[in-house]
């Protein structure tokens, strides 16, 4: 007979761990089983670049202290992949053939790197940069000075570039778009980051794709760019993008054209099956529709709400937005919501201070829908909060870009309510909208 668990969680990262925490807070008794394909206790994926760069030791990678699973009374199956889910019978089967019954199931399977079809790629021993194992491989292969070619200048590509540079490698990044971090940053901030990278010795080639690859053995090779330019490399890192990892959800019978779809309680279309994290398309309050925001805080928040709902406390997910915090070579940049307005109907205000100080807000009518701060980033969260709340900022519009912008600019009653609010947190969108600040 297969063992029965009250809760089964697949995935051992931001979403799954926060779901465990939330379940345990509400249900101290219910049995929990948690599967993680990787051979590690839960670690923080974004820290792999810090590890490679030597800024932290392996001990600093862990997201939770040693003894976490025991103290939470979680039956943790390390290095175990779940291969099949039968939602009607409420069972799952692992790669080793073990069968487990569950009463509610969380799919927190995350993302996988997207590998475009490039002629010659199959013959090259290339790397991706999405896991602790990838970090180990990069460490091993940059032990001697290497020429590293990174394809893609998104967050993961740039993190890989920074890490490889810290290892003493000669780094070149090739990006199809015209600038670095095209999604998270606007043009100005991209330029600033680019400048910093160039000063640090990283070459960035934009507006170019890799048209073909010629292997030279041992993972080395030559890349031919769209314009015919050639680049020799000792190590190739593919970082063109990520896709939600949905094979298990599809096996369970869910349609996943754009990630796993969930309702506001993180429930999928299947009874008893919940989903959270990068594999999921969930409400983006700024866009006003479900979207995949493959970001750690978003995955963690979804996991938390999935956990609460699995434990029987019905609380709707408040929604999130695209929030990015990056720092490259001493230049911090934070952004939230829409930083590159897709068309007309937006009001964009920017301010350039001295040095690297750059700020921008994006408004749609009287609603703040996006912000970006570079250089001096202190108190950026006040703006993120207003974005998240869809606050009406008509009365404070002129102060938004000021360094001293804060609660002092909000009407007294609103400010008092916020400050004395005991359950302060990400407040439900609507409260501030109705009232206007």
């Amino acid at each position, binding site marked *: 007979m297969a063992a029965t668990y009250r809760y089964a969680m697949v995935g051992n990262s931001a979403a799954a761990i926060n779901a465990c925490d939330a379940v345990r807070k509400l249900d101290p008794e219910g049995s929990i089983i948690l599967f993680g394909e990787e051979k590690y206790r839960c670690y923080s994926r974004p820290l792999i670049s810090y590890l490679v760069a030597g800024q932290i030791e392996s001990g600093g990678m862990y997201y939770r202290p040693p003894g976490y699973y025991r103290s939470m009374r979680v039956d943790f199956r390390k290095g175990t992949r779940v291969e099949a889910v039968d939602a009607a019978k409420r069972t799952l089967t692992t790669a080793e053939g073990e069968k487990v019954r569950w009463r509610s199931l969380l799919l927190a399977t995350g993302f996988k790197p997207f590998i475009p079809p490039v002629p010659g790629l199959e013959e090259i021993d290339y790397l991706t940069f999405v896991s602790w194992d990838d970090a180990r491989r990069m460490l091993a292969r940059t032990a001697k000075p290497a020429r590293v070619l990174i394809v893609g200048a998104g967050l993961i590509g740039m993190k890989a570039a920074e890490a490889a540079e810290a290892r003493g490698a000669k780094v070149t990044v090739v990006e199809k778009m015209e600038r670095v971090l095209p999604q998270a940053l606007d043009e100005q901030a991209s330029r600033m980051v680019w400048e910093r990278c160039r000063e640090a010795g990283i070459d960035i080639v934009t507006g170019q794709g890799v048209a073909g690859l010629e292997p030279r053995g041992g993972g080395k090779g030559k890349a031919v760019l769209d314009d015919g330019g050639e680049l020799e490399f000792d190590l190739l890192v593919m970082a063109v993008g990520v896709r939600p990892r949905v094979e298990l959800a599809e096996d369970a019978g869910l349609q996943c054209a754009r990630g796993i779809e969930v309702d506001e309680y993180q429930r999928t279309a299947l009874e008893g099956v919940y989903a959270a994290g990068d594999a999921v398309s969930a409400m983006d309050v700024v866009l006003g529709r479900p979207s995949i925001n493959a970001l750690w805080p978003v995955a963690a928040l979804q996991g938390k709400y999935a956990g609460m709902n699995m434990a029987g406390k019905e609380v709707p997910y408040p929604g999130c937005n695209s929030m990015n915090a990056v720092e490259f070579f001493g230049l911090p940049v934070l952004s939230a919501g829409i930083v590159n307005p897709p068309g007309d109907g937006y009001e964009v205000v920017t301010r350039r201070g001295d040095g690297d100080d750059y700020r921008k807000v994006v408004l749609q009518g009287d609603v703040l829908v996006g912000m970006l701060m570079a250089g001096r980033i202190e108190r950026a*969260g006040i703006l993120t909060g207003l974005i998240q709340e869809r606050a009406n900022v008509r009365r404070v519009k002129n102060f938004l870009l000021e360094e001293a912008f804060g609660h002092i600019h909000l009407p007294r009653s609103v400010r008092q309510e916020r400050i004395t609010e005991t359950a302060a947190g990400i407040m439900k969108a609507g409260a501030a909208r109705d009232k206007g600040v």
Partner: protein
Amino acid sequence: MAEIMVIVPVYAYDVYVYRPLALCLKVTARPGGALLPVRLEDEEGDLDLIRIVPREEYCIGCRLCEIHCVVQHSKSKNIIKAFKSERRPVKRVEVEEEGHVSFALQCRHCDEAPCVTACLSGAMSKDPRTGVVTNDPERCVGCWTCILVCPFGAVRRDEADKKAVGKCDLCPDLEVPACVANCPNEALLLVEE
């Protein structure tokens, strides 16, 4: 015998906060003369969270709270050394000022703290017993995600020791947080919740 709890209104920050009378009577006097609530444990041994509430009608904008916060979080805890010879830690309280109005604001130790959920490394945590939200500088990598999500702007880069953030920790070594204790006009109140 069942105890009868008497709830009384207490004037705090322009609003009346309702608190058990027993709590209001259990107060200690501090040198400055103000009365402070004593922390009580509930049946589960949990402490009630203390929050610092600003009173803008009393704040004179002198920023002494900021100064004493810096001193309290410095190595020597000596005002001259902290400002002159040591690497100066960041202030964890900020006085906001506009025209005649000012008040001091620090971390609210939120119930559902966005910074804790968002933290990439697990460095930011909420003590389940005291409700205090603190950052472990040993685990913090300085990714600034918490700065991005804190709706009160209560987290700052604190690169005095290493790349990490600093925020209000309610002064664990002191009975009364330094900002509250050193406010000359009682514009910061300790409120038990």
